[in-house]
């Protein structure tokens, strides 16, 4: 068969999403229905179709396509499946929210969501610095537009502007770093960079110089301290449905490119980037948890909580290789991957609850809006409690096992002090999560209006909350999937 056709088959999920994105864009012109139901259904079907294609094209081996620019491996496939699921859940939660807001209630919302998903898929499957950069840009550009879509809101416009300027700066840093790596190794392809490092023929000063810029760019995209300034403002200013998108799926893609760049490409420089990531992780854990305490806006609080969660993810990547000893690497990286997956599950659910409480003209984004939720809806108060317990790392929720596996990896690498520090910071963090629970159960409600939400969202949110509890009882299922996929990919 023509090799180009084979490439297209390997990359068929991307091809499907791109083609359907263009098709939906055109079909939506003919939709008269102001709620754009047919566009919504088509978008959902596209994501389901992409999931089916990803499952069927997955061979379990590492397959390269398009002259080594694209890689299809089990890590990518697993992350992509989680990505589709997250996108589907995000769209279901976002739908009642955007239907109440005329500026967001447009067909382009779904098209941009699809293109953002495509950008993340490109990032996850990237095997070349060029593809990584293009994936980031496709994702970022779609998200900037989505954040700014609420045009009459000053906060949204400001958030979009900040996100755009800082995102452009981050892309610039990343590109600069990539050009340095290219200058030192003479190639942009990740496996070839790794080979060039093994051959030890490149200028170490330029390599380290490039590495600093690459780590800074990645840190911007992950939103870790000291590159976290945009996170709280964008989370607060963006419409909640978009915040849910930013706070969820892109972290999967950012994890994937971090793994591909640092672990697959620059593993020989591990002693250098481990030190940098360690600083980022330690600072993120401290500032994320401490700055979340005084927040009165729950979206802003969740933004700081994201920063601390990303600190945990980085901890897992830091402790992978100790002094040239890669025995624990698989364990450490898979615990990071498990952490990202469970974080996305919790984050999407938390924003789902905020959307559940909001209605036209009312955002429900203050912590005070959660007062007495138990009296208004005992079930959703319980769901929110499970999410908060899980984020805080209370035992037998998925968040506990995520933190536990990271700490296990840190201890295995012999850095007991670091593990104790992470536990202390999590304890500080537990305060603000538990405050939400206290507010929901022990305070009198300010707002007595009944909660109105469509049945599909109620059911999905309940399933999401129960999944957090259920996978907390059986964390091994996801954990072993992560470990197996990484084993077959690295």
């Amino acid at each position, binding site marked *: 068969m023509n090799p180009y056709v084979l490439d297209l088959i390997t990359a068929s999920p991307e091809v499907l999403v*791109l083609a359907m*994105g263009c098709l939906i864009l055109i079909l939506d012109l003919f939709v008269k229905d102001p709620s754009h139901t047919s566009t919504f259904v088509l978008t959902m079907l596209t994501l389901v179709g992409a999931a089916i294609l990803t499952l069927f094209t997955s061979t379990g081996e590492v397959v390269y396509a*398009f*002259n080594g620019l694209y890689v299809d491996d089990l890590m990518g496939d697993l992350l992509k499946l989680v990505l589709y699921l997250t996108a589907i859940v995000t769209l279901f939660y976002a739908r009642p929210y955007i239907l109440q807001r005329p500026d967001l209630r447009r067909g382009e919302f779904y098209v941009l969501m699809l293109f953002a998903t495509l950008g993340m898929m490109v990032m996850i499957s990237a095997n070349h610095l*060029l593809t990584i950069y293009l994936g980031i840009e*496709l994702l970022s550009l779609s998200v900037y*537009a989505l954040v700014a*879509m609420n045009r009459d809101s000053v906060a949204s416009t400001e958030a979009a502007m900040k996100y755009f300027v800082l995102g452009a700066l981050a892309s610039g840093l990343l590109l600069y770093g990539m050009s340095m790596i290219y200058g030192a190794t003479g190639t942009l392809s990740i496996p070839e960079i790794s080979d060039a490092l093994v051959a030890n023929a490149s200028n170490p000063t330029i390599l380290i110089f490039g590495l600093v810029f690459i780590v800074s760019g990645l840190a911007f995209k992950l939103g870790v301290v000291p590159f976290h300034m945009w996170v709280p403002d964008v989370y607060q200013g963006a419409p909640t449905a978009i915040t849910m998108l930013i706070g969820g799926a892109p972290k999967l893609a950012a994890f994937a490119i971090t793994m591909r760049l640092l672990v697959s490409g620059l593993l020989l420089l591990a002693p250098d980037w481990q030190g940098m990531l360690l600083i980022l992780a330690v600072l993120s854990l401290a500032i994320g948890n401490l700055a979340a305490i005084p927040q009165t806006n729950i979206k802003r609080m969740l933004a700081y909580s994201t920063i601390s969660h990303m600190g945990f993810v980085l901890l897992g990547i830091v402790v992978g290789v100790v002094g040239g000893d890669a025995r624990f690497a698989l364990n450490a990286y898979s615990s990071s991957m498990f952490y990202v997956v469970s974080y996305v599950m919790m984050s999407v659910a938390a924003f789902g609850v905020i959307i559940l409480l909001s209605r036209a003209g009312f955002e429900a984004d203050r912590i005070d809006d959660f007062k007495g939720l138990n009296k208004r809806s005992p079930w959703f108060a319980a769901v929110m409690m499970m999410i908060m317990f899980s984020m805080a790392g209370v035992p037998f929720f998925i968040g506990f096992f995520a933190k536990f596996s990271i700490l296990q990896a840190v201890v295995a690498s012999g850095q007991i002090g670091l593990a104790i520090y992470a536990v202390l910071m999590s304890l500080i963090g537990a305060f603000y999560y538990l405050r939400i629970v206290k507010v929901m159960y022990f305070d009198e409600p300010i707002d007595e209006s009944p909660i109105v939400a469509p049945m599909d969202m109620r059911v999905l949110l309940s399933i999401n909350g129960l999944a957090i509890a259920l996978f907390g009882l059986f964390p091994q299922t996801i954990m072993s999937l992560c470990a197996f996929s990484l084993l077959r990919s690295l």
Partner: protein
Amino acid sequence: MEFKLILFYVLSAILVGSSLGVITSRNPVNAAMFLVLSFFTAGAVWMLAQAEFLAIVLILVYVGAVMVLFLFVVMMLDINFDRLRQGFWSYLPLGALIGILMILEMSIVLGGQYFQVLDTPLPPELANSSNTKDLGLLLYTQYTYPDQVAAAILLVAIIAAIILTYRGRKDTKRQVIADQVAVKAADRLRVVKMDAVKPQPAVTAAPESEAGDGAAK
């Protein structure tokens, strides 16, 4: 070879002249037109150096898109250019510094052999190849995938620009035939019940009452 050299000098002279025109002409439209001319001549000089792809891109992108936009802005906005020109002398030291730096950089590159900068000759197999063709071959074979992703990025940029700026016109007056057909009399005409004879206000005098009745609607 001789003809090429003469052509180069002629084009360079036009390029330098038109560039001087850009910064000396008082009328901004003239300056923009001089800039268009200098882009064209620079394109032609590149063509002489067998960099035909760069030449075409320069003309298509800069002359075709950027300068047209620039001219639109200059023509449509009422900018007071005399005010803009104020403070020329205070910017002069910075401008001169940048100019001197540029001259230094160019002389290092051009006089490579004096500054020990490597002067690599073009590999012989590339001497007669067309760079447009080479770029096209690479873009559509090895780099098809990033090429397509870049196309998707441009599409997203278009969508984003439109959704962020287009609000639809609120003042258009178009016919909606369905509404016109479905209209009922009650939508168009309101029948108001009124008394045929108004009771006389107390203040006005009696003799005018008949005239008042006649004027009643």
